[in-house]
């Protein structure tokens, strides 16, 4: 074997603390290395050309590049060696940037460590074998999880481009958080007027299949061919028969159910259609409030339904779908603000959340768009907004900025003045964060034209006094303590990853951060991809964002999915496990540990043996580590290659 070694300077990123020329010189003494050099930027065009030229000039059969993390440029170099006629798997990368130059300043120690890593890579390369990917057909269908504005956008864009789309929404209607908003900033246009038509488009699009009130049960398979199980939760109403007339919701005698859509601002019935523009506009029964289920007798809705759609015997139903790609757009939930006892912890009815306030402002909300104090139904005069409730607060584990609260608070202050011209709004804030197009102007307008009084400081306490609420806080600009007599207090509650997002991430086999937000493939360069091929992200599930950004990311995710699914065939990664049948004793350990169910037991002349399903194997190596006799090996990471690396390092 003839190995060429290229030590990248990465400008001064590596060369600043590693003597690259010395590493190359040492590398030239390693077994089978016939050529070693240092190079300014291996990934740039001149660098790649130099690698290709060296392969041709020295007849190299394998290449080691010592540079950055393989997650960055392994594909780049693989393609480069392939252009020079060398199999792309006859290539190894030593990470001397993230693992060496960026973490230490001692040039001598760094140079030694870099040389050792290169020695390991070269030792591994000597045992590499040429690998060839196999191609497999792609299912041209996209799953969109979540029917909020980001998911809607992704679904419509993909469906318009001709892709079949399956949308799963856990609530009985799509629309997500945006459907609950009265108006949107900074234009103050009606939220349901702009979202409604999109929701209708989803319902009517011939390429979109919508499963509302359904959840993702299980995902197996791999990019291009995911097998998805969707659990359609029982609605106890046959949606094929339901016309959405709403007669059942008028006659339902159980009128004290919690109204999820309206954030509990008013009560609702046990059988509901969440709101007039709901898509699908179908009724469903909330079992925990239904008399038929709790008392065993009632049946009013079944009696009044003109189409006989109510079915109390309905069971959950599982649907299996095959898709080629998945867009996760599961959005966010509000932080549990009741941990703040200084804001009453939920004891004071006139302290409401911003989303509850939004429902009060909405003409289709339970108050018909009239702002009323929940305690006595009177119209408030002084309305106090408290920002950063559950945002930027490390004490409750939410140190991040939720991003959109400054803007919606400004919008709500404007709407308050519109609804109640004699009112006065106060906004307690930490900083005003308004970096979007037209956003800062908007926050000026609420102060200058609508007379909202902005107080820079935190609220330390809210307490009731004679039917009003006293809001005590600091005014840090004036250096004084202030106390405002409020009729209504609106908490700008921060957002967090939606409930169970981590469980979903695990089903999708994607990473998530400490707060449950899904991890993008790269914070700058792969903002909608994940590290799991075929799974994309849109909207707040990846990190909190407002409507324009969510929509943009929805479109971006659709574009990425379309790029993937525009191909008829995909190449499988050949770095997968394979079984040496004569060594396999059929002990089944590999089958048990495989997280992808990629190994099956087969019978070979009466003996049980393991067999890898090539297209399902993801090359994680768990089987390899578990097999006691080493009968199952991971191509490109065989036991002997790992041992060769260990021996190169320890030099026994």
């Amino acid at each position: 074997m003839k190995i060429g070694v290229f030590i990248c300077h990465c400008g001064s990123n590596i060369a600043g603390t590693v003597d690259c020329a010395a590493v190359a010189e040492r590398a030239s003494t390693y077994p089978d290395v016939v050529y070693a050099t240092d190079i300014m930027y291996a990934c740039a065009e001149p660098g790649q050309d130099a690698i290709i030229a060296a392969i041709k000039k020295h007849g190299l059969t394998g290449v080691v590049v010592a540079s950055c993390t393989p997650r960055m440029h392994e594909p780049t170099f693989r393609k480069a060696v392939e252009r020079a006629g060398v199999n792309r798997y006859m290539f190894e990368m030593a990470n001397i940037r993230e693992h060496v130059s960026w973490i230490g300043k001692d040039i001598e120690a760094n140079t030694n460590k870099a040389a050792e890593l290169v020695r390991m890579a070269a030792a591994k390369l000597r045992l590499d074998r040429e690998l060839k990917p196999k191609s497999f057909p792609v299912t041209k269908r996209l799953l969109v999880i979540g029917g909020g504005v980001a998911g809607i956008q992704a679904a419509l864009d993909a469906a318009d481009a001709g892709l079949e789309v399956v949308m799963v929404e856990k609530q009985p209607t799509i629309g997500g958080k945006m459907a609950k908003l009265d108006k949107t900033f900074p234009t103050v246009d009606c939220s349901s007027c702009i979202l409604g038509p999109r929701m209708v488009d989803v319902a009517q699009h011939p390429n979109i299949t919508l499963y509302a009130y359904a959840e993702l049960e299980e995902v197996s398979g791999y990019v291009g061919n995911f097998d998805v199980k969707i659990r359609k939760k029982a609605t106890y109403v046959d949606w094929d028969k339901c016309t959405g007339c709403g007669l059942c919701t008028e006659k339902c005698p159980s009128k004290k159910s919690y109204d999820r859509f309206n954030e509990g601002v008013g009560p609702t019935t046990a059988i509901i259609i969440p709101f007039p523009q709901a898509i699908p506009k179908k009724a469903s029964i909330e079992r925990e409030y239904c008399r038929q289920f709790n008392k065993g007798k009632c049946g009013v809705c079944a009696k009044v339904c003109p189409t006989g759609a109510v079915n109390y015997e309905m069971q959950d139903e599982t649907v299996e779908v095959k898709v080629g790609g998945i867009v996760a757009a599961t959005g966010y939930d509000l932080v549990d603000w009741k941990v703040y006892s200084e804001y009453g912890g939920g004891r004071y009815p006139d302290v409401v959340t911003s989303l509850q306030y939004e429902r009060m402002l909405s003409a289709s909300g339970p108050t018909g768009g009239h702002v009323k104090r929940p305690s006595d139904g009177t119209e408030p005069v002084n309305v106090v907004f408290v920002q950063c409730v559950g945002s930027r607060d490390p004490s409750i584990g939410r140190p991040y900025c939720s991003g959109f609260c400054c803007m919606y608070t400004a919008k709500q202050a404007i709407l308050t003045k519109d609804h109640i011209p004699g009112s006065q709004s106060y906004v307690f804030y930490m900083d005003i964060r308004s970096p979007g197009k037209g956003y800062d102007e908007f926050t000026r307008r609420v102060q200058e034209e609508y007379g909202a009084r902005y107080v820079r400081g935190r609220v330390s306490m809210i307490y009731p006094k004679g039917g009003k609420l006293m809001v005590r806080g600091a005014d840090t600009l004036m250096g004084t303590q202030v106390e405002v007599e409020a009729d209504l207090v609106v908490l700008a509650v921060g957002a967090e990853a939606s409930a169970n997002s981590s469980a979903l991430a695990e089903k999708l086999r994607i990473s998530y951060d400490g707060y449950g937000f899904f991890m993008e493939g790269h914070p700058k360069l792969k903002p909608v991809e994940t590290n799991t091929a075929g799974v994309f992200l849109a909207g707040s599930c990846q990190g909190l964002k407002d409507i324009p950004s969510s929509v943009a990311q929805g479109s971006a995710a659709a574009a990425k999915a379309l790029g993937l699914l525009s191909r008829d065939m995909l190449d499988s990664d050949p770095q997968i496990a394979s079984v040496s049948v004569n060594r396999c004793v059929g002990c089944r350990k590999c089958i048990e540990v495989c997280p992808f169910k990629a190994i099956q037991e087969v019978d070979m002349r009466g003996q049980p043996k393991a067999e890898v399903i090539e297209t399902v194997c993801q090359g994680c190596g768990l089987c390899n580590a578990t097999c006691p006799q080493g009968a199952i090996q991971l191509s490109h990471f065989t036991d002997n290659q790992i041992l060769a690396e260990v021996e190169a390092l320890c030099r026994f």
Partner: protein
Amino acid sequence: MSIQDELKSAITAALPDVSCVVGWGAGPEPLRAAPLFIRGEADLEGFSAGFLSVNNPALYLPSLKGSKVGVVVKGCDARSVGQLAAETLIKREEVHVIGYPCRGVIDVDKVAAKLAGACETGEVAALREDGDDVLLNTPKGEVRLAKKDITADKCGRCAFPNAGNADVFVGERCAPVVTEDGYADIADFEARGLDELKAFWEQEMSRCIRCYACRNACPLCVCRDQCVAMSREPHWLSQGDGVRDKLFFQIIHAVHLSGRCTGCGECERACPLGIPVLKLKRALSRRVEKLFGYKAGGGDTPPLLTFLVEEPTIKERDWK
């Protein structure tokens, strides 16, 4: 009826349905019994179970897979049967388990130490049990030894003297010596510190002759002819005669048994050099018990042979 007779009638009753019953019979010398494969009533004559029934008959079950067999087990052997079944290395329904209460077995090395200077254990002409003692006929006359002084160490920490999963159990169940194996011996051993332990193992393993008796006696070692110790592809062990490779093999063996070893101690007993290799396995078993709340042999799948996104006993999400 004595336990011996009860066992014999249980075996006789089982014989028509099984290809053989594995038990114990007379060994090469009076202090040692040997595994006995009973295929017909004629073979029963040599059968006996008791103080000398040291070998773990579960060892033979994986190689007898495919036909129904019977096996006579002590409590510890039954744990091996349970583990083999949990790992589907045997089919539990193919095994007819006959259990009896075990009150400990002999450790011939301890007898040798008692007889040191007087005679070799091989020179003992006969052994007779007398209550809590044994009487040995040696060339220098009769020697009386208390059973408790020559019982295997593992019996001193036995929590399972009665085969828990037996299809037939004869005799009165006896009380366990301890209710829980606290691994006190291992805790003390590990307290010596890494340097001293390294020196200890280098010293012990320098005596190893790489006979692999430890591996061959292990009922849960399943690779048989495909053991990594013999393989070039993958080439885990060199064929060199160094302590490093010998210790490396013991570590591989222990790791392969982590969460699987039931502590039957056959590896250590089989070692002709008396290297205390069970310690390595017990050290790992102790950790597995602590980490996963799992005790091998109870019939559940070992934690390291499963893939769970979240281990119920490891509260990863609470890690700070």
